[in-house]
């Protein structure tokens, strides 16, 4: 993949506001997408997933939107809290689940200001 330079893209929001993190994926054949959250010093943790036959899926305080036309995925976090501060990754599975080979996006750092 391309280098994004020295720093991760960063999104800074005020506590209580809604956050929207965007991701462009590369493979139009991908049919499964996941958002992961990675806190400092920890491994990525699953947040929410969506299959390509859906365009929206909601979880607790999180919503994932999928636009297959423009190959775009977004994660919306409602009422963002300090504990949401982390790096967020989107991932796609280009093989229809047969290989489990998730391809990760570059990550966005979310900073929540109290």
């Amino acid at each position, binding site marked *: 993949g391309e280098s994004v330079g020295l720093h991760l893209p960063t999104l800074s929001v005020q506590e209580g506001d809604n956050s929207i993190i965007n991701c462009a994926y590369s493979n139009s054949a991908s049919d499964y997408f996941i958002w992961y959250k990675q806190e400092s010093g920890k*491994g990525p943790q699953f947040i929410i997933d969506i299959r390509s036959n859906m365009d929206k899926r909601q979880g607790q305080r999180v919503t994932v939107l999928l636009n297959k036309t423009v190959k775009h995925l977004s994660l919306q976090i409602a009422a963002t809290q300090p504990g949401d501060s982390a790096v967020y990754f989107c991932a796609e599975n280009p093989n229809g689940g047969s*290989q489990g080979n998730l391809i*990760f996006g570059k990550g966005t750092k979310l900073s929540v200001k109290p």
Partner: protein
Amino acid sequence: DTAVSQTPKYLVTQMGNDKSIKCEQNLGHDTMYWYKQDSKKFLKIMFSYNNKELIINETVPNRFSPKSPDKAHLNLHINSLELGDSAVYFCASSPRRAGTNEKLFFGSGTQLSVL
């Protein structure tokens, strides 16, 4: 209680040395993975094993050799360590039975520093 556990958490070593990282999962999953995360936080798959059988082997130097003694364990051995091997290495597992979801469960990572 840790689902995917890897050891050690930190590994500092000299160039040219050989080292191993161990991983165990107690989730009963069939598939295990090694991912490498570089200093820009970019995560890239290295290997994947399903029931002890290698199924994904990305373009990784052959100094890296995974070993899966059973489906609950996937260890990573690295020979002749180089400065560029410095990174955080994550082990992961997934159920990967036909018809189930494909989400991965990650360990907490091993930070490897090669001096």
